Structures are given as structure tokens and as C-alpha cells.
């Protein structure tokens, strides 16, 4: 598929001076240039989606957890879908068994709907 003419690259935070004049460029093997990072002056920050740039890490995580198709029902681990990732970000529930094991480690006072739901499943 023809993706049109290349995109100019602005390098990462380590090379802001290069970014400010837009002279840096990196061509990918498939012929498309990457947008990395550019900071301008008027309180506007421009961030690319390349992983080489630490600044964009939060944007990437935020995006993949919040954007995209959600299939409702029929998921193997969709006890609460993405919400589980937000539950603590210290465990992802990859199976009902794992979920139960994890929640059993939590203080008994915690009576969230999710916990109740999983407890019902385990009974």
C-alpha cells in the first residue's frame, strides 16, 4: 500500500536542539520516516509514538488501554476487561483461578463488585 510521501522525524528528548530546527531524520526500512518528539515554545508539546522516546510511554499506555475495539462477552479473561489492568497494575488476571488467588491475598474488608463477582464464581 502506498502511504504517501515520508514524514519528517524529530528526535527524542536527548536531541531537542535538533528537533527545534527539524533537521534530524531517520528513515525506516519500509521507507517511512518516524515522528519521534518535538517540543515547541507555546506550551505545546508534540510527542511521537515511537518507543525510543520515554516521554511518550504514558501516552502509549494510555492509548492502548483506552482506544480500540472492545469485544463484549465471550472473552476468556474478560472478568472486567481492561478495568482489571487498572485494578492495581500489579497483576493482570489471566484466568479465573489467578483472579481468585490474587483476590484471596487482599484484605477481607475490600468488598468491590469485582471481588464479589469472582467470589461468587469460586463458590
Amino acid at each position, binding site marked *: 500500500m502506498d*502511504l504517501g510521501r515520508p514524514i519528517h522525524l524529530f528526535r527524542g528528548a536527548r536531541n531537542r536542539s535538533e528537533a527545534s530546527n527539524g533537521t534530524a531524520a531517520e528513515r525506516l526500512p*519500509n521507507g517511512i520516516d518516524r515522528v519521534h518528539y*518535538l517540543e515547541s515554545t507555546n506550551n505545546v508539546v508534540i510527542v511521537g509514538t515511537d518507543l525510543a522516546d520515554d516521554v511518550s510511554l504514558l501516552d502509549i499506555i494510555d492509548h492502548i488501554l483506552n482506544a480500540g475495539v472492545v469485544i463484549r462477552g465471550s*472473552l476468556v479473561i474478560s472478568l472486567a476487561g481492561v478495568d482489571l489492568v487498572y485494578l492495581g497494575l500489579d497483576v493482570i488476571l489471566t*484466568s479465573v483461578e489467578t483472579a481468585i488467588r490474587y483476590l484471596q491475598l487482599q484484605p477481607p474488608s475490600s468488598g468491590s463488585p469485582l471481588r464479589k463477582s469472582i467470589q461468587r464464581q469460586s463458590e
Partner: protein
Amino acid sequence: MPVLAYCITEARSELAIPAAGVGSMPVKAVVAGPLQCFVSRFESGSMEGKATIRESALEFHRTVQELFRQAAVVPFRFPTILADENEISAFLAKHSSEYESALLRLRDAVQMEIRIEEREAASPPAASGTEYLRHRLTSHKSMEETALGFRHASEEWVREWRQREAPSGLRCYALLMREHLEPFLTSMKEVRVSPGQTARVTGPWPATEFLKVNK
């Protein structure tokens, strides 16, 4: 065998499939009619632990981006795990016309996101509820004006514009042709944002905010 779903593309695209996805699992295409979905095998327990989740999320992003650089994609939200490939095929068959038309419409297009927020220091604690609401209203109007500034500055390059309120401020989405990314970014630099606000422009992303046609 459970599979992790990455994204949907048009089946006719001759794409270079990423060699490995999350957990170094091979990525494969499940083709169903005019669409294909990229998946990799998912092993229960393979994503436990904070560091592993983060790494898996980034591997997911890398895989989707690799495909997105070659074609329009409809990504799945991370993590979407299905029982097996049959479920993916059934999902594609059910939503075939919806995603086929979206991918056709969004071919060669990318989405840029502009997040406008108020600086924390710019919002002193309110003495009363009324004062708080007044401040919110003023702040909202100001962010709307900033969004309008971005919209006007880039209107030459933007095919479609959408925006919505978020808890932290205002999120704007611009749909543009991939080839217009550079002039679009240049136009973003020309916008002046008030000292009490910040604007964060990110992308290019798959055009997830434009999958549905505005009526």
C-alpha cells in the same frame, strides 16, 4: 488455545507480518472474508506482574504500530483475549461490513490527538462550590477557545475533527491523510496556548475515534 488479538486490517493488504508479538509469540493472520485479524497465542499466566504487564503492553503497541505503518488498522483494546481463532473468525464475520467500510474510509489516514489541560498551579483551591463551578466554566471556555485555535490552524490538513471532554481537560482528535502529517505538525507549533494551559499533541495513531461515521 487462547489468542491475543492485535488489530484488524483489510485482507487484501499485502502486509509484512511482525515476526513476534507479546511474549515473543509468533504473530499470524486470521482471514475471514475481506478482513484479517492479527493474533498470537496467549498462555495463561504469561502476563502476571507489573513489569511484565508494562512490557506486554509495549510489545502489543510495537506490533500494532508495525502493521499500522503499512496499512490502516482497527486495533483491539489491550488486552483482548479470545478462547480461540474461531471466536475471532466469528467476530470478523459478524462485523465484516462495519469494519470493511471503516478501513476503506480510513485508508491512508491517521489520527492525531490533542490533549488540552489546565496547569495545576492555575487552579487554586476554590473557597466554595459556586466559586469552583465558576472556575470550571471559565476554564472550560478557555480550553474550547484553545481547541478552536488548533482546529483553525490545521484546517487545511484535517479531514475531520472531533473533540470531547475528559476528566483532565479536553481531548481533540484530528483525522488527516498520512502524507499531511508534517504540515499538520508545523501548524500545531503556530498555535498559542495560554500560560495556564498545556497542550499535548500525540500521534500518529490508528483512527479509532473515527471508526463510526458522524450522523
